[in-house]
């Protein structure tokens, strides 16, 4: 185990950033003080179906992983046991409502969503986890303006509770060209307009770099212009959603530097599907590529 990593992950949980930096400067030296503003690393569990959460935690900690994400409440104890965070909690669902295809853009889903998100927000708060994913749902013929209005209506019903518990609802931007045909929250401009319509610091977007490269490109410019609406980032190689290395078209280190330059203090979640045999080695490589 790397002792510096452990100390750093403990420190990231402190709220007072300036005080932390000063303390680090004294205790660990200038090099580690610089490391304090570096990208916090997370990984999505679903990309490693054959690895147990326990094993993923043990392996990930060796190379600087600070969080495993998109977990349901039954898994919270495992990450906590390893001293890891869950930077993005998975969505609740009931009768298919809450899933990517069926969510906040339909008024008829709202009663169910309020019910299941009420419970999930409390579970997040109890565990000390701060961010909870949500989706727009598919268009299914719904125009973007009505879809946005409906999302705002539904989310506003649950946001007072989220605000009370300090939990941020984070809607994911997904591509509708390849993976999620007809998904409505598929452009950052639409997502930003929804954030503005809602006007709460407890509602933000998950800017998935893979999905947005497929839908709109111009990644760094978009991040720099709209980062105040982005609460979380995901990675993935384009095309293919595999390793984020030189086999695909995005220069991830440059994108990570752009994220850093916005003063981002959250996590970057690795969400690629490893193509190579050694899945954990691919994850380690992803974390290294994003360590800038």
């Amino acid at each position, binding site marked *: 185990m790397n002792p510096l990593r452990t100390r750093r992950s403990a420190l990231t949980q402190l709220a007072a950033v300036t005080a932390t930096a000063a303390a680090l400067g004294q205790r660990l030296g200038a090099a580690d003080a610089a490391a304090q503003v570096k990208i916090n690393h997370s990984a999505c569990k679903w990309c490693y179906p054959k690895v147990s959460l326990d094993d993923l935690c043990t392996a990930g900690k060796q190379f600087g992983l600070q969080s495993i994400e998109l977990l349901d409440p039954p898994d919270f104890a495992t990450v906590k046991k390893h001293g890891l965070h869950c930077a993005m909690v998975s969505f609740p669902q009931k009768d298919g409502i809450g899933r990517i295809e069926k969510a906040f853009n339909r008024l008829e889903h709202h009663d169910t969503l309020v019910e299941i998100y009420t419970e999930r927000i409390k579970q997040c708060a109890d565990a000390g986890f701060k961010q909870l994913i949500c989706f727009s749902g598919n268009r299914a013929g719904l125009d973007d303006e009505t879809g946005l209005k409906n999302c705002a209506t539904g989310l506003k019903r649950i946001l007072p509770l989220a605000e009370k518990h300090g939990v941020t609802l984070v809607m994911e931007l997904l591509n509708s060209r390849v993976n999620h045909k007809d998904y409505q929250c598929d452009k950052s401009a639409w997502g930003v307009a929804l954030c503005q319509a809602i006007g709460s610091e407890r509602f933000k977007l998950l800017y998935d770099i893979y999905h947005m490269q497929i*839908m709109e490109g111009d990644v760094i410019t978009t991040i720099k212009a709209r980062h105040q609406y982005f609460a979380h980032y995901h990675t993935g190689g384009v095309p293919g959603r595999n390793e984020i290395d030189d086999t695909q*078209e995005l220069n991830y280190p440059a*994108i990570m530097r752009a994220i850093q330059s916005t003063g981002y203090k959250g996590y970057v979640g690795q969400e690629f599907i490893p193509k190579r045999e050694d899945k954990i080695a691919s994850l380690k490589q992803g974390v290294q590529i994003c360590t800038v």
Partner: protein
Amino acid sequence: MHGVTPIIPIMKTSRRSALQTAAFAGVSVLTASKVRAAEAGDHYVAKNGRINQSFVTWNFRPLTIPELAKLAVKFGVKSIELVGPEHWPMLKELGLKCALAGSHGFAKGFAQPDQHAECLKVLEQRVEQCAAQGVPSVITFSGFRKGLTIDDATKNTIAGLKKIAPIAEKHKVTVALEMLNSKVNVEMKGHPDYFCDDMDLSIRILQAVGSPYVKVLFDIYHVQIMHGDVITRLRQYKDFIAHYHTAGNPGRNEIDATQEINYPPIMRAIAETKYAGFVGQEFIPVREHVRSINEAVKLCDV
């Protein structure tokens, strides 16, 4: 944006004159002695032969066209492009090609019916010159939209390109319609109100024209700004691509790890499409020019 005044209504080959007087005056401190110093050091020579490289010239000012031609020879690059016929004999003497000839400027084009005659006149003459001198392709543009509906501008562009198609076919010279970004409102980095700012629409236009000698110029920088999903698109549209351009994004500068486009895998994807044309380096260096050019040659020599 509608009705935006054309920013620099000039020929692409004379972009440099605008650049000299504008924000890029600062780069002219690059002196001849510095060029020689950089040339004297170690340099990379393209050797793999999977990607034919070319240099666009306006963006590498203050390096002159003859200086760039000498660098091309030195770095194993086979072409200097978007230069007029007056430079072609010099290129031939050095064993270089001109992969893409300049023509009318990007502020005029086939989206506007009242500009058809002027563009056709320039293109007809240039196609004949290309055929006589072995230049395989010539650039063309849509020009600005100027308040036209997309449907009308599309119809106009198809009609205009259909007029040049038989001449291109007769001489076996490819006319390459360039797609530019209309998003970045910085001189020579984007072109607000330019009509052909959408690769998918550009391809639909080419399909309607239906000529094997009217294709698209796939500028990777512009595509990344307007669309992303570069490798998927270049595979999807490989049969319609006459030429490629490079530059880093954001900024249109060096194409290395300082920006978001990972060029080596894109070059490998281009080679895998059996592309036999050229890739023109069209970035504006912010660092020492000769070194940046050489690094770009290396990155694209996959």
